[in-house]
């Protein structure tokens, strides 16, 4: 299975207010079992986790599992042995966690899942999971498009890997948002496997199949990378991305902000790399007075437009 980095979304802005509570806490130690550093987003998540912990005076121990569950299990066991105050896990796969999380539970160490959920019948094995609402991400893009085109638009959709949860959720959300506008139709939908070349190849065929692209008003892509490929395909067909065909996507990777700043793309919903921040806040509140956080801490999904793209690009370049 491919590891994609599109599983959550949240905004920095929402966190600033919450994080002030941190000062009161004793010096907490948190162990963070990270999946690896397979993508820019993942690296950013780690980087943000470090700075967010520092901001709150929390000691963060990070263990890189290099995409292996057994490494994550080992790391969790060693965190338990060290007697940390909490354990953050970005689980590489959804199953196989029951026994090690039970060990953490026995040791009374709260566990937070970051950016991905696990399949487990026993929800008491972890305190909360911090993930984005992927259906909502699709809805935000859909709502924007309906408004932008006054409810009249032929959309082509670049799906993620067939059967993957972000592809299913983002498709569902988008379809919900356009359901009330009969003028907005998905005329073609194919999988570009979340990759740039996949997006480019699929978009090429869409353009040809839809009268040289003249029938297409917008392309909705389940991630930014496919959209970047689609932008190239649109240009190579002699059309102007962002104008002849609107381009909207989800993720918020720097290259997409660059495209937006150059007027070649129109909108993206950010998948926030800040997963650790909300988890830390929940942990601190719990340690302070036993406040139980909600089981699902949704990170906030924010849509970005070309007007702020240049500034956002500059900010992100250092982060990624």
């Amino acid at each position, binding site marked *: 299975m491919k590891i994609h980095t599109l599983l959550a979304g949240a905004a920095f802005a929402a966190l600033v207010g919450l994080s002030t509570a941190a000062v009161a806490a004793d010096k907490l130690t948190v162990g963070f079992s990270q999946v690896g550093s397979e993508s820019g987003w993942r690296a950013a998540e780690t980087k943000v986790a470090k700075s967010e912990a520092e901001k709150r005076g929390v000691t963060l121990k990070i263990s890189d599992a290099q995409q292996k569950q057994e490494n994550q299990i080992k790391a969790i066991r060693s965190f338990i042995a060290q007697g940390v105050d909490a354990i953050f896990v970005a689980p590489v796969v959804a199953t196989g966690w029951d026994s090690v999380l039970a060990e953490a539970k026995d040791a009374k160490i709260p566990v937070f899942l970051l950016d991905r959920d696990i399949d487990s019948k026993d929800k008491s094995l972890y305190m909360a999971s911090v993930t984005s609402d992927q259906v909502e991400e699709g809805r935000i893009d859909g709502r924007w498009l309906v408004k932008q085109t006054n409810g009249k638009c032929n959309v082509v959709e670049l799906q993620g890997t067939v059967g993957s949860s972000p592809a299913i959720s983002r498709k569902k959300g988008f379809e919900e948002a356009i359901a009330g506008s009969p003028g907005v139709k998905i005329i073609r939908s194919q999988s570009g496997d979340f990759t740039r070349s996949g997006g480019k190849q699929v978009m090429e065929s*869409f353009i040809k199949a839809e009268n040289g692209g003249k029938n297409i008003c917008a392309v909705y892509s389940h991630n930014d990378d496919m959209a970047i490929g689609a932008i190239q395909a649109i240009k190579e067909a002699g059309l102007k991305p962002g104008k002849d065909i609107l381009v909207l996507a989800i993720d918020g990777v720097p290259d997409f902000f660059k495209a937006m700043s150059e007027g070649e793309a129109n909108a993206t919903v950010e998948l926030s790399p800040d997963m650790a921040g909300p988890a830390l806040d929940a942990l601190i509140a719990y340690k302070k007075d036993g406040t139980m956080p909600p089981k699902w801490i949704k990170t906030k999904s924010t849509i970005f437009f070309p007007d702020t793209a240049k500034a956002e690009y500059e900010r992100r370049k250092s982060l*990624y």
Partner: protein
Amino acid sequence: MTGMAPAFPAIRKALPQIGALAVVLLANWLVFPGFFDIRLQDGRLFGSVVDVFVRGAPVALLALGMTLVIATKGIDLSVGAVMAIAGAVAASMTNAGHGLPLTILAAIGVGLVCGLWNGMLVALLRIQPIVATLILMVAGRGIAQLITEGQIITFVDPALIFLAGGSFLSIPMPVVLVILMFVLTLLLVRATALGLMIEAIGVNLLSSAYSGVNTKVVLIAVYGWAGICAAVAGLVVAADIHGADANNAGLWLELDAILASVIGGTSLLGGRFNITLALLGALIIQAMNTGILLSGFRPEFNLVVKALVVLAVLLFQSPQLMGMLRVTFRRAPK
């Protein structure tokens, strides 16, 4: 023998592949009537049928090397990963300000080194090819990720982008590169005795060695060539998306390349090979992919449709089945 006589058996041998390609193209035309429309866009041929050639280029390039490897009774699972490495090297080089010649040389050099590594594991240490190349298949993508630090390295150097986006006599560059590598490969194996030695090794390694064929050198050279072909494919793919995507460049393409070779009639048991037919195999695969994209089917059907078509092509090539059909048809009228 002169004139047409030798050409006839060659064409007859290619009939299953030519037939399969014709059927797939016809199907594409049926689902999308504009399939064969071609126009010039920015001085470059543009159209769905052109897409088949352009998008088929990476697998076609891989198939050139893969066919030789398979003919030696080997297999190279690492070519997809080598593509990713070559792309990553090219992107880093060009972003470091090096010119196109040095960039290409570095990428191809890295591909060659990867291929030689495979060849040495197979020829000198006698590790089974599927295991030997699995090492680089797994590690290679990691190496590529180390070079790109897990990100997509984008570049804007027009010279490098030209390798995929440019054209020569209106022919898109990926197609030009396939033709170039095809001619080079053909010269390499058929203008020398290498082709004979590859086939001899594939059929019977021991007999070949006892006849004085330098089996080790031939094997290493063949894997080296597969590495070079993979590097060129990696350059094309990186130039196409203006970036090196270590996670996804060439992912699973080794399997398409193996399929192209097999559709092209090269047996996985080694021996006789035909790189022209392997190219046809790559085209059949891509024509299928393009057709599926144009058809508007739901993507859930992609793999099923692909599997059915491949099955049909391979059955069409099976002498046993053809023999059975012939018998059936001959009996039918009575």
